[in-house]
């Protein structure tokens, strides 16, 4: 089989953190005894423990085997090995017994359904091990938070950044990368602007909310429990989402896309809205910095007929798309007033209090100056600000002061317009 691209490999990652970690491991000096045949790759990667991890990838699936404790599939070691291979860094070789045995075993079980775990007992054990580590990590975090609250954060700005980042690293070790991200976000608030203590309290209180929700996990409704697990960073295998996730067929209107480049990883969010169901879908895509992302399923403003398989959660939004028919043009979508749009965000927040972003389609809004920046104002005179730093000139030129329909991503910093409609023609912003 032909070699893969690095992006293709990273596309297999269950989240950006694994993609990042995988790239970090894609260096020859991290590996020993590597080799590749037409059907498999393998190698030994020295981790923090004494024994190196044994990593193998069957290319046809692809399927992964690794002796590391990670419950992510593929784990960072498998990703790293594949990236190294994609860069021609893995020499051809003879399959050792532990690789060929595994592959033969897999081949013997051809009946296996997609999403089924290779070795359910082992997987359960791994999951249990991980659950323990997460619980221990979160308990430590809870204690730390309590201490801070009792002793006060008065002199906090001096030591906060370092301390929070150390704490974030602990959460990564505890296999709670979602919490680690939240703690890092809190670290970044410290000392920025006059209102930072208030913002820090907001961030810390939401971290506290995850910690206490986790402590009550068995008592929560299953969908909310899933949401909490997701926020903690418990990965969901894509195969499982495709096999067991809620499935919905519709003509999915592509409301728009937001691409956020980073030094190491580019993240793209594609927002969809069902033409008949009105459901919102979010497709996340990642690529190594400077590398192209997968092609978009459609141009903003077009329909993609197909199935969305939703990740579990109280606010099922992230999804995988299986396109069933070619994309088609779509009419200008109906939108909402500013008040209706804010109300829809409140509903989203009620389902998932940690939700940061929500797509809005605003109807008949006009641009207005708002301080140094801009806002969009609806017919009733209600307005929402546009994020500072976002270049509004295209949007302004299309509107020319006339009311227009705008699809935007909303978060606390304001609107980030994605698409607007010039009469009935979608314009990507």
């Amino acid at each position, binding site marked *: 089989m032909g070699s893969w691209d690095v992006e293709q490999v990273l596309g297999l990652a269950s989240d950006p953190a694994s993609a990042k970690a995988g790239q970090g491991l894609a260096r020859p000096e991290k590996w020993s005894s590597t080799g590749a045949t037409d059907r498999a790759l393998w190698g030994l990667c020295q981790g923090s423990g004494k024994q190196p991890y044994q990593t193998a990838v069957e290319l046809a699936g692809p399927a992964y085997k690794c002796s590391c404790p990670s419950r992510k599939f593929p784990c960072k070691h498998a990703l790293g090995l594949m990236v190294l291979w994609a860069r021609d860094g893995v020499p051809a070789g003879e399959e050792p017994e532990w690789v060929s045995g595994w592959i033969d075993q897999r081949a013997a079980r051809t009946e296996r359904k997609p999403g089924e775990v290779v070795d359910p007992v082992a997987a359960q054990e791994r999951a249990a091990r991980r659950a323990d580590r997460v619980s221990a990590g979160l308990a430590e975090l809870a204690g730390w938070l309590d201490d801070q609250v009792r002793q*006060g954060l008065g002199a906090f700005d001096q030591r906060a950044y370092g301390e929070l980042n150390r704490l974030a690293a602990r959460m990564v070790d505890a296999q709670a990368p979602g919490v680690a991200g939240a703690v890092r976000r809190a670290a970044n608030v410290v000392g920025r602007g006059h209102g930072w203590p208030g913002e820090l309290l907001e961030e810390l209180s939401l971290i506290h*909310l995850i910690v206490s929700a986790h402590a009550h996990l068995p008592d929560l409704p299953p969908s909310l429990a899933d949401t909490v697990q997701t926020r903690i960073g418990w990965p969901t295998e894509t195969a499982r989402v495709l096999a067991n996730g809620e499935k919905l067929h519709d003509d999915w209107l592509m409301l728009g896309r937001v691409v956020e480049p980073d030094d190491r990883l580019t993240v793209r969010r594609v927002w969809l809205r069902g033409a008949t169901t009105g459901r919102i879908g979010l497709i996340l895509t990642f690529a190594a910095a400077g590398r192209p992302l997968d092609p978009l399923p459609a141009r903003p403003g077009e329909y993609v007929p197909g199935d969305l398989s939703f990740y579990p959660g109280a606010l099922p939004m992230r999804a995988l798309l299986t396109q069933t028919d070619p994309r088609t043009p779509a009419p200008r979508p109906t939108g909402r007033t500013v008040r209706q749009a804010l109300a829809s965000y409140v509903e989203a927040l009620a389902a998932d209090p940690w939700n940061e972003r929500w797509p809005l389609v605003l109807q008949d809004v006009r641009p207005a100056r708002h301080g140094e920046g801009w806002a969009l104002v609806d017919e009733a005179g209600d307005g929402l600000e546009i994020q500072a730093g976002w270049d509004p000139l295209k949007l302004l030129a299309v509107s020319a002061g006339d009311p227009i329909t705008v699809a935007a991503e909303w978060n606390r910093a304001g609107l980030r317009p994605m698409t607007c409609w010039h009469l009935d023609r979608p314009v990507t912003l």
Partner: protein
Amino acid sequence: MKGWDGLVSSMLLGTDRRPADFDELPEPVRERLGDGGLLDAAALATLYKRAGRKPLRDLKPLEAAGGEDRPLPRSGAVRRLAAMLGGFQTAALGEWLRTADANGWGVPPEQLPALADFARNRPEYRPLVIAAAGRRARWLAELNPEWRFLYAADVESNDPELWTHGNAVQRRTWLRALRWRDPAAAREALAEVWPSESALTRTEFLGLFAEELSAADEEFLEAALDDRSREVRRVAARLLARLPGSQYGVRMAARLHAHLTATQGVLAVELPRTLTQSMERDGIDSQNPEGIGKRAWWFHQIVANTPLSEMDLTWLQLPVEGCAPELLQSAWTEATIREGAAQWARELLVANADTGSRNPAELLRLLPREEWAQAVEALRSTVDVTELVGGLTVPWPPALGAMILDQLAKVGTNRAWARLASIAARAVPPDVLDHPITREPTGDEDTWRRRLVETLAFRREMYEELT
């Protein structure tokens, strides 16, 4: 939100020192709090705040740009425009805009900011972008000071307020438009404000008189010869030199005849000895450029600014005494271009005369377009053809375009032809874009041929999309 600041200060000082006070928090938060602590209260309050976010009020939307939009061309044309603004075949941008405008198509408004940025440092594109902006021109001009040139679109409103209270761009455009409609009224408008304007503004405004110049302007221009600004005087002299039958022309002719006589088949020149005050008043520059003597320079300017009617085409053939023949020829070229005299241009080209600082193409441009191909053919042996056609306005007449492409089709892939090919790729008119050269195979190494064919094909598709 009430109570929030209390939570923040408890967090800063620590609840050991300052126990959190929940009494000030909103009712719904307190109700749900139960026996929760500071962080529970903060989480509830945070969500309460986020969910309770109110829309902004009392914002004033921008005023709508009045008027109608033109329809947009097919989506292929729209995409092509975006590609050109993205850096692909950008040199064809002006052609796209001109063709779309001529066919009654509008421009997708989302491209206007990029177009305005593009035209910012390329004045030749500004009229195209102003036309493309349509009803949005003034609106955009107010969004970004770097797009002030878009104010020029205001002229359509014909509002005298623009003349009295507008900015520099609006005033200049207003005056230019009035000059087109009613030259005398424009002259009066300018005369009224003349004493109070700055030298720079006077120079700029006076320059607009080049349009619709007539004998009626003479008095005003004569007066401007005495202006306190040297630049104004220079512009006035240049305009007067273009005015047939003016006193200025009479004065120049007298000077010419004092220094140049045609006798017995010889042109006898006697260079001026001094630069008189009257010569200086008529805009003759005392300072000679490098490579030419002072007296020769004065004489050159006299010839260049004397009406051609005072001279004779047969002089081109005569031997010259008293100065270098090139001096006279270059001055005649200047006069010919100034007057746009086709017959003189034709003779000068045939005479293979020295055109001084002017490109022979400037003379060629004075001939009727249908003569261009023939003239280029005739000049081929003596003039650099690339230089010649490179100075012609585009698009070329079809005969010239076909002739140059025919030639390029025959010459192989020698790199010496690369420049001519790149000029021709942009300059041949729509009728010639389907030339047989586009159907000949090109190898990867035939760089200029491949580029030529690509550009011709690109332009052909562009025209097809816009019609």
